């Protein structure tokens, strides 16, 4: 099973890239746990998770080829 991950703003900076593919990840919580292990600086960043463009607020199961996007808040004006 493959999951596409898109990172925006300071999240892309922390992950040193904007687009990723991961396998063997079944839920959004699994994905976040995995990302925090891989990219320690994510722990101090805020972001929202979207699964196939829909912003979610709790854990969700993932299906093959789902796209998960990580959107941080910006305050600049």
């Amino acid at each position, binding site marked *: 099973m493959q999951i596409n991950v898109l990172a925006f703003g300071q999240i892309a900076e922390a992950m040193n890239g904007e687009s990723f593919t991961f396998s063997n990840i079944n839920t959004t919580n699994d994905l976040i746990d995995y990302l925090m292990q891989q990219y320690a600086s994510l722990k101090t960043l805020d972001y929202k998770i*979207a699964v196939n463009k829909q912003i979610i607020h709790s854990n969700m199961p993932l299906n093959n080829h789902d796209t998960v*996007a990580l959107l941080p808040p910006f305050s600049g004006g």
Partner: protein
Amino acid sequence: MNNHLYDRYQRQILLKEFGTEAQAKLFNAKVLVIGAGGLGCPALQYLAAAGVGTIGIVDFDLIELSNLQRQTLYNTNDIGKHKTTVSAERIKAFNPSIHIQTHTIQLNNTNAYNLIYNYDIVIDGTDNFSTKYLINDICTILQKPLIYGAILRFEGQVSVFNLPNKQNICTNYRDLFATPPLPNNVPTCNKAGVIGVLPGIIGTMQAAEAIKIITNIGEPLCNKILSYNVLNNKSYLFDILPITHNSNNFPTTKAEIENFNYDWHCGLNNTVPEIDFFEFEELRKNEEIKIIDVREEGEIPKVEAFSCINIPLSNFVNEIQNIELTNRVVVFCQHGKRSIKAAQILKAKNNHLNIVSLKGGIVAWEKQFNDSIY
């Protein structure tokens, strides 16, 4: 419409979706632009040029040299002048037939509500979370369309809040980011930088959304947030749904707005004053105070020397709403850490209260209390 005005707007009146009817709608509209900076400048320019009849400009800042790289209404000779004055002058020159109101004030929880009330649409061109959440909460209470914009480095975000779609679904910033991030968790443009054309693009998109909403053409970005990247020209549209469980941790009435401390809510300037044993003894013997124990049920030592109420931190946000508070409040916990958290929550919602935390908690207090007896 006289010939002169027709000529001015002829190119947009020609659009079959637009016509003189839409032009009249623009002339009757009142749009408030909060922040005359990177986002505000292009938004103001296009709203004025398009013929929005009444434009309000809110800003407190003076023009600085470092603004000129992106705030294109200003030039080098304007440094040191108020942004409101100069931007009003410039857009009045673009279009003398519109009415411009300047508000040279620092927007806060006591002046924002009545100001926003008088406009039809608000454009958020602010540069900090305290003001973004303040504006969002007020526009949500008033059910007023809020066109949100935010930028950082090479990326920007645009959205329209409080505008119901055809299914009558309506969302706001708190349905996306329910609570503000911690201050150090998000870089600011002052520190992380921003490419000058980015606010030009995002602010122009905000003006476009305002024009679409006023004239009722196209599909405004309601229940969606657009993320745009200058470097690769990629954009991504997120769907936002209402959050059904309300945390009760933000104002939902005008009165609650006026009692709310948005800086504290956003984790800014939120140092809680602490008092030591002697100050606490003095207070509780001589003044009318409310003492709140924020420890969880069953934690020891139990307090018998003075009366207090117990509101565990784990449910503090909900339970505190039912408690009548006096002017002075002392919060304590076991060692003085959780009580600071509780004091911050309390202060955010009750800006007028004098709230202190007992240093070292009940453990330190008890030790000194026993020492003072023997």
